[in-house]
Structures are given as structure tokens and as C-alpha cells.
């Protein structure tokens, strides 16, 4: 009970929180046990809704007083109305989604501002693992290939192309080390050194995002 209620946030989530306007409406896709939203609601005066499907995490979020809607990100984001939130967060979840392009389309429809964090398959440790003939296992990608919840692996370079073609402008990129802290000097080459990265995105306002709603 105490762990859930602490205001201390994982480092990468603190960085996400810093990019969210106090008092705004936040939708957190893959909210886990709701720690980011709990922090935003209580420390930043935000209103928030979480989406999660893991049973224990849903119960933990509800216990913590975070509103959480159980639904499948792949097929049911149409439940949320156009422009109904100020920010949509997708934290360390994109890699576990079967249809990432559709999810991004919904995110751009639901809010003009999106924050996405993703593990970087292009980090040098992962490259070394592959050169030595093995699938990488790291703090950011901690599973064996056969039991990983992740179904999508990308380098930051390819990810940025994907954001661009999906209609998002990258306002900010925050490359993180394996402890979830911002990179120091190595940040000049994030694709090689970052274990993961947080992206602050703006949905292209000239695009007709509502077309995705029907899905």
C-alpha cells in the first residue's frame, strides 16, 4: 500500500511528467499501476485516465485512486473522443503493440500532444549481442525472445522516420541510459548509446486525424 502511494516516481516517468502541463487532461496508455497518473493528479493538479489490461495492475491503479479503463490498445482506442485530452502518454508500451501505426493515429486524434517512450534496439550493447550471435537481453529489454511481451523492435533512427510518416513532429528527444536517466555526453549519438528514449511529439495540425476513429 505504501509503495503505491509514494510520490517518488521512476526517473523516466519523472521526465515524462516534466513535459506535461499542470492542470491538463492526460490519457496514459499502458498506465501500469497508475504511478505516473497518481503523481500528475496529486502533484500537478492534472485530470487523468489510464488504460491497462494487466489484471493486477488494474486493481493496483484503482486502489491508488487512478481511473483506469480496461481495453485493448490495438482495437478499442476508438472509445476515446477526438481532442478529448491535452496529452496522450505511451510509456514503454509501443514495442508491445501489434499495430503501432494505428495506435499512433488514434493518439494524434485524441490529443495534439503525445509523449512516447521506447526501448532502443540499436543501442551498442544490443548490437554487440547480435554480433556475438544472441538476441539482446538488457535492463530495457529484459526478456528472452520466446517469452517477451514485446512484439516490435526498433532503433531510434527507424522510430523517428516512423513518427514522421505517421504525421508527428518531434519537439523533443530525451535519450536515456539503462537507469532511465538522461544521457550525458553520449547524447550526441542516441541511436548508439541510449537504452531508451522519450519523445515529445506534436500531431500535424493540417492532417485529418479523425479518419482513424472508425477503426
Amino acid at each position, binding site marked *: 500500500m505504501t509503495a503505491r502511494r509514494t510520490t517518488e516516481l521512476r526517473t523516466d516517468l519523472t521526465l515524462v511528467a516534466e513535459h506535461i502541463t499542470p492542470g491538463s487532461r492526460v490519457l496514459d496508455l499502458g498506465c501500469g499501476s497508475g504511478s505516473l497518473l497518481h503523481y500528475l493528479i496529486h502533484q500537478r493538479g492534472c485530470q487523468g485516465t489510464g488504460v491497462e489490461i494487466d489484471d493486477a495492475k488494474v*486493481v493496483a491503479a*484503482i486502489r491508488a485512486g487512478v481511473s*483506469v479503463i480496461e481495453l485493448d490498445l490495438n482495437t478499442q482506442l476508438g*472509445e476515446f473522443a477526438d481532442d478529448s485530452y491535452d496529452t496522450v502518454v505511451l510509456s514503454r508500451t509501443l514495442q508491445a503493440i501489434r499495430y503501432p501505426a494505428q495506435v499512433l493515429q488514434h493518439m494524434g486524434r485524441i490529443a495534439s500532444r503525445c509523449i512516447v517512450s521506447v526501448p532502443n534496439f540499436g543501442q551498442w550493447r544490443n548490437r554487440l549481442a547480435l554480433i556475438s550471435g544472441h538476441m539482446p537481453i538488457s535492463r530495457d529489454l529484459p526478456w528472452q525472445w520466446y517469452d517477451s511481451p514485446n512484439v516490435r523492435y526498433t532503433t531510434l533512427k527507424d522510430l523517428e522516420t516512423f513518427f514522421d510518416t505517421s504525421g508527428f513532429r518531434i519537439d523533443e528527444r530525451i535519450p536515456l541510459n539503462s537507469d532511465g536517466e538522461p544521457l550525458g555526453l553520449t547524447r550526441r549519438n542516441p541511436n548508439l548509446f541510449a537504452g531508451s528514449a522519450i519523445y515529445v511529439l506534436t500531431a500535424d495540425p493540417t492532417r485529418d486525424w479523425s479518419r482513424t476513429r472508425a477503426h
Partner: protein
Amino acid sequence: MPDSTPVTGFTAADAVPDESDRRETTGEAPGSVGLVTTQQVQLFDATHPLGLASGNTLTEVTVAYETYGTLNATRDNAVFICHALTGDAHAAGYHAGDSKPGWWDNLIGPGKPVDTDRFFVICPNLLGGCQGTTGPASRNPETGVSYGLDFPLLQMADFVTVHRALLAHLGIDRLLAAVGGSLGGMQVLQWALSAPEQVRNAVIVAASSRLTAQNIAFSAVARQAIIRDQGFHGGRYLEEGTLPETGLRIARMMAHITYLSEEAMSEKFGRRLQDAEIPRHGFGVDFAVESYLDHQGEKFLNRFDALSYLYLTRVMDYFDPFADPAATAAVARSDSRFLVMSFDSDWRFNTEHSRQIVRTLERAGCAVSFREISSAWGHDSFLLADPIYHATIEAFLDRAAEEAR
């Protein structure tokens, strides 16, 4: 007091035999509120009549209710239970001499999700019912005989008006939570929309904000079975000394089919024969499922009134609170929180009914949580002790209690 176990359909006892068997032999399960009695109070009279949403009035309204647990000094630990179509005030514990507990005993009691060690729990029989609260079979003070079809048509808001009068009688301004399944959940929704300041936390299970044509069709056939029964006598059957037995029995049998999933029926009965090795190939009761429905219909006659069945099902048909675009205005400004739940095998009020409620509330800016619980037992799952379902209610109410402190 009539047999109090069934609420909408088959009960926990039917589906979880090991649990109910134990209770029936020991008489009291761990975590039981123990022996309870139903109380009655007259909440409206000729000088303070009940004004209905339709504009009609009722000059005498008595309400049957039960309470469990203790109201705290600050009067802010009350949890209100709204029952479903054919439920009653006896939600938990045992009546003297009964072997079966109240209809939601698996949820309500010391250490249970609706924890009577912490909460003061109130459960009344609703207006229009027939289990101690004024309904169409009650005596009309103007004529001295039962109302029959002279009883005014009711709306969901009328149930809430009477619930609120009961709260006032008990000296309670604000609920910690209101909890209900099926028609009970619809009352909770109506209450939270019309008086959000009174319902800090709303738990709405297997409910609907708008019946579909199929839902209304089932209710229509049930009502026709009753009304066309020779014993109905235009609703004056109590004076005539008859009962629309066949109609009420068929209504109940058909409703029971809708309360269970196909999977649950297959598992419970399959194509098993009731008490024969080989099929009799006649029109009598041969299959186990026929015997079950027959038994449910028979039991229902002893405890439920046909007029109440007409009036209460009709309230559900017309219920459509979100048709008013301003319906969510008050609750969106309040601190009220919602927990909405559905069951994946429920085809009476399937998950889309709950999603409609969630979508509307969420889009209005309300704090709403939603879960679809996986359960094989159809609509009646809400009466069963599914661990994930109960853990979710428990988490929601634990947080509610903590926030109230």
C-alpha cells in the same frame, strides 16, 4: 419473508455448490453478518406524499430495508446496495430459521469487499416491489383494495427519490458508495447523475443506460405472458382470488434463459436427462434444463408478484438517462467516481451496454474506471464470487474509505 435467495436468476448457490453446501450445513459462513431482520418504515404519507417523476403522487409509501454494520460518528461510512429486478432487502446474513443467506452475502460481510466491519450497509426493497415495500399489489388507501393497474407507472428517478428518503430517515446526508448490479446498477447510475453530491462512489455492474430492442422484446413477451393469463383479470387478480400463475411462471422461465450464458447452461445441464436413463420422447419435463426452468418458475410464484414484474420491467425499458445531453453536467462537476463492470459472457446486458455508460461518463470528464470480467456464467455472474470481480470492488471501496478519512 419469502424465499430470499434469487435475485435475477440462479444464485451463487446454484453455481458454486461447494460454497453453498457448506453454508447450508453450518448455517453460518465465516465473514457473515449473522442473524438479521428486515425492518419497515413509512416514508411518505398523506401529509407528505411521494411526488413521482410523472407528476403522480403516492400517499402511502412503506419501505422494507436491512442494515448491516455500524454507522460511524461522522455518518460518512454508509454503502447503499440497490437490488436487481426481483431482489429484496435481504442482501446479507441469515433470517432466523433460514439455511440460505441473503442474495449478495458473498460480497457483503465482515472482511468481505463490502466490509461490514468498516461500512454501514443499507439495502431496501425498491418502490414498486413486492417484498415489503409499497408496490402495485399494496393496498390503495383511496379504495381500500390493492392498486392493481391503478398504480402509477414508475421511472428510475422514483426509485432514487425513495432511496434518498430512506437515507434522510436514517440521518445520512452522503453515501460513501452506492453499489448495484443489473437494475440495481441502473439505479446507482440514475442516483449519481441526479444527485452526485450524495454518491461519492458509484459501483455499476452488469447494467445498462439504454435497453436494446432485444432487451425490450424479452420483457415485452414476459409481460404479455402475464397480462394474457386468464388469472390476471386486468390486474385485479388479488380481489378475484386468482393468480396469473402460468404467465408469471413463463416470464420467469424465459428470463432465466437470458440470465445464463449458453456455455453455462451447457456446463450445468448439457443434454442430460432429468430422471431417466433413456429419453421419454414426450412433451413432459425430460431434459435437466427443463426441470431447472420448471423449478425456477415454481419457486418464483411463491415470492414474486406479477404486477411488480410488469411495473419494474417497464421502468427498465424506458430508462435512457443520457438521452438528455445535460444529464452528465452535474456529475461532471462533482468529485464522484465510477466503477463500471461487465462480464464477457453476459448477453442480457453485454459489455457494450457498460461501454456506453463508460464512454458517456468519460467523455463528460467524469472519473470512471471500467473492467470487463471474464466469467462463464452470463448475466448472473454479478451475483457470484469471482475473485477478480470482487478484488476490483474491494480495491475501489478500500480507496474510497481511505479518501473519506
